């Protein structure tokens, strides 16, 4: 089996192909870096995405805090994560890389703040 796809790991958008036979060994070609190899394999086995969103904060000058997962999250956990994010109402100060949710759905991935809000 062969699947052509576009690597979404970075804005380069390499056109890659993943090929696999009966032994389920996947070989990825066309990738310019290691990230493409990982992406190609994951996309066949279990697609994962980085999630970014914003949540409510009680700041004097900014309405929403931008947050991001520390790595890619299996797609099936995305909706429940978003629902959790939208229920937050955080107090400042917040420093960039502060952990907002630890170990999302036991995946080992955290949700972190991507901006510092001091007041």
């Amino acid at each position, binding site marked *: 089996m062969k699947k052509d796809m576009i*690597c979404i790991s*970075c804005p380069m*958008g390499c056109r890659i192909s993943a090929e696999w036979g009966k032994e389920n060994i996947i070989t990825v070609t066309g990738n310019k870096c290691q990230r493409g190899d990982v992406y190609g394999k994951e996309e066949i086995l279990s697609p994962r995405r980085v999630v970014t*969103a914003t949540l409510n904060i009680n700041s004097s000058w900014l309405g929403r805090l*931008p947050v*991001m997962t520390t790595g890619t999250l299996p797609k099936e956990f995305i909706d429940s994560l978003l629902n959790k994010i939208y229920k937050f109402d955080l107090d400042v100060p917040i420093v*960039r890389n502060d952990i907002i949710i630890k170990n999302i759905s036991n995946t080992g991935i955290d949700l972190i703040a*991507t901006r510092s809000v001091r007041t």
Partner: protein
Amino acid sequence: MKELKFDTLVIGGGSAGMAAALEVSKRGFSVAVVERENSMGGILNQCIHNGFGLHHFNEELSGPAYAEKFIDMVESSNIKVFLDMTVMDMEETGDMKYVYGMSGKTGMIKFCVKTVIFANGCRERNRGSIGTPGTRPSGVFTAGLAQRLVNMEGYIPGKECVIVGSGDIGLIMARRMTWVGAKVKAVIEIQPYPAGLTRNIVQCLNDFNIPLYLSHVVGDIHGKDRVESIDVIPLKNGVEQKDKSFNIICDSLLLAVGLVPDNELAQKIGISINPETNGPIVDRQLMTGKNGIFACGNVLHVHDLVDFVTEESERCGKYAADYMDGKTFSDQYRTVPGQNIKYLVPNFYSPHRDNKFYLRTMIVKNRAELIVSVNGKEIFSKKLKHIQPSEMISFSILEDTVGAEIISECRNNTLEVKIV
């Protein structure tokens, strides 16, 4: 009116302005940055998605995180930042430039400087720019405004939306609207190919089964107080197929129909503009037609990657410092966009220095070749795996690539770039 003296004034505290200001400051010159928002970072602050910084920082950051790394550097430098300040006017007399900035806190300030760097970005094209007919109900937003409302202010502009334009902002907003619970019914693109990065087609549309209508336009907007539906018309060879038009029910329309460099101030003081980029015509040192006035980032030409903005702006800062150190180059000749090139920046090159170019092509092609020639003689070529108008291409011509035998006094020494 309060008067302040600096060596350099940078207009705009986004990714371009911060990078340029830092380079000027590193060379020991005094720098002021004027920013109209209440924090630096510019458009990055609302671009909360990831994918920034892979080239420059070698890590994957969100827009605000990329901005914050530069904000931290600016704050620990000697750069003076004026937030909540808008530039009202500008004058120049010989070697001195006078820029008038206004803020609620400081009132009017007259900056007296030797160099000015325009780094004030671009604006969104809107409904008027694409001439969409129909009524004028609420619910029609530019995509960037919608992005700001959702990501920074916490308002959701609609529940069922249609996005016009498949540029990156349109695609990113399709995912964002889906992730905040809205239904994105379609993305409509006038061109026969998508305008955004392919990775964004994959992760913003295909992931959510959002249909992309290529070669389609919005024919009508219906609704009295609020958008109720829109008519979509397919194009065939550029002609509207009105008999095949269809209706989509929606309550909002997000327009991601392009960006235009914001050059009103530059034009007011007589700086000539390149009609292809809508940015100033600049020489090899990114200096506009006026001595001591430079431009970088989206005000020069609209970029698709912030990493390229940073690279260009850091060079711009160095060039501005060179200028103040008295290093200018008179041996500059024109560059012209040739076959299949929409635009080429900068508009001049110097045969005895390194030259870095950015360009956009007009065509979509696999396995293309970029060819550079001077006086009709090929001096450089580069194989390109895949090209499309939405992905900017960059290349460098290193010092002495253009040999002395090519440059001649009796020829105009124009450098032409084409893609075949």
